[in-house]
């Protein structure tokens, strides 16, 4: 474990009107970790992701990533600093082809200007060619290269999830945020997904923060786990600690009873 955290979330919270959706959250992620974020429905997990990615601006606290303050940056700026994400309800560019979906993620690396594209200068061709090659290589890793010309909306559900992860990775993140990647998958697909996550983590030297409902899955792969309930962190620690934590049990049981 390195000594300075890659991501440091210091006492962060957000208020919508009078409602505190998330408050006083402290999270530290270190380079190369695979961390789980769990909690009952409505605990504020996705809101927390939205705070990290700049969709919402925190009303309290501070987020630093690789030593830089993220508060108030636009989502696209945060992505360019090296945090990318997937969405709980898949948000692909449906009418674009699989290949183009990935190319969009490469956009921020493109060096050819609008003018050079309009005038079809050599830099346009070399830039586009480079993007295309990179994107195809990328799709191969995910076994999606055979589908590259298919419109994203026509892919089966599991493939759409894969593509979304591929697209997020193509944006060259240091930290990848996965919002319920296994939602709606059968056990076989979930297993494949977990292998994929383990693989990309090693291949791309990633740090991963994972929101998941599937408890065995989280317990099985994550090194540390944070638990959110009612917008507050109620526990953190190893899967073993979390499993036995009375507060966590109460939070989950409480949910099931109601």
């Amino acid at each position, binding site marked *: 474990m390195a000594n300075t955290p890659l991501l440091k979330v210091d006492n962060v919270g957000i208020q919508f009107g009078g409602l505190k959706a998330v408050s006083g959250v402290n999270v530290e992620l270190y380079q190369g970790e695979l961390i789980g974020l769990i909690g009952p429905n409505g605990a504020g997990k*996705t809101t927390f992701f939205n705070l990290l990615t700049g*969709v919402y601006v925190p009303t309290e606290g501070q987020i630093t990533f690789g030593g830089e303050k993220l508060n108030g940056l636009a989502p696209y700026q945060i992505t360019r600093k090296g945090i990318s994400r997937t*969405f709980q309800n898949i948000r692909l560019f449906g009418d674009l082809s699989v290949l183009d979906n990935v190319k969009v993620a490469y956009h921020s690396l493109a060096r050819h200007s609008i003018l050079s594209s309009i005038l079809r200068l050599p830099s346009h061709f070399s830039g586009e060619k480079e993007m295309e090659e990179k994107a195809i290589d990328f799709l191969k890793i995910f076994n999606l290269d055979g589908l590259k010309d298919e419109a994203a909306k026509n892919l089966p559900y599991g493939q759409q999830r894969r593509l979304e992860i591929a697209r997020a990775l193509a944006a060259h993140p240091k930290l990848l945020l996965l919002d319920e990647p296994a939602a709606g998958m059968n056990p076989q697909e979930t297993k494949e997904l977990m292998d994929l996550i383990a693989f990309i983590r090693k291949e791309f030297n990633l740090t991963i923060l994972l929101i998941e409902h599937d408890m065995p899955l989280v317990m099985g792969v994550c090194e540390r786990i944070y638990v959110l309930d009612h917008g507050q962190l109620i526990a953190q620690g190893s899967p073993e600690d979390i499993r036995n934590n009375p507060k966590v049990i109460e939070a989950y049981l409480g949910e099931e009873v109601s």
Partner: protein
Amino acid sequence: MEIVQQIINGISLGSIYALIALGYTMVYGIIKLINFAHGDVFMVGAFVGFYSITVMGLSFFPALLLAMIICAIFGVLIERIAYKPLRNATRIAALITAIGVSLFIEYGTIYVRGAQPEAYPAGVLPSKSFEILGVTINSQSILILGVSVALMIILQFIVHKTKTGKAMRAVSYDAEAARLMGINVDNTISATFAIGSALAGAAGVIFGIYYVKIEPLMGIIPGLKAFVAAVLGGIGIIPGAMVGGLVLGVVESLVSAVGYSLWRDGVAFVVLILILIFRPSGLFGKNIREKV
């Protein structure tokens, strides 16, 4: 005193905007559609009123009632024929359809009866002028304001005290959930169109009496301005539409009063853009953000 005079004129104009705006806001609230054809229902109301006074020889209130009934039926027909098949279509498709319906009514009317304007006969309502503290008030203005206010009160009663009103509120909040609760969503939407169109029809007759001249394209500008009024008050919010209409009417009259009458039509749009940029949810609206 000039200012007070203009404010009073503005209130009369504003109550017409408010009546039209109510239909916009109710329809938007329930099916999220900017019903561009609404201004044309207003025009149809004006013509129905005109013909029932001149041809059928009705007096003001029967003419008003007839215009409201015919417009209500007309509004429901528009909804059933053009908008219902598009319930699940994209917003853009629905908006384009509304524009299409609007053009169809306008030019259909011209096709049927020609583009020539008509003038409402004088003397439908007694026109007497009072002077109170140096301000001239016409008895017509008072009656018009009274009718508008009465209609708005009836509307409030329908929306808050009747079963239909409750269903309307439920559908606008969550159509699917309302359907599961046994509410007939289609009928409720039709009822909304009927009520909104009846109010526009009433506004048409009132407009005719107050401003005399009516013609087939008369609905476009008041329609757009009424929409602005609805946005100003917070779209989907009934009291918002009333206040928005009155505010817009008064602001327009004041702009004419200070000598910029040529800019009058522009004022509504400037107000619209300011409100959209600084407070898109309107004066009375709550901010709703897209769920990520």
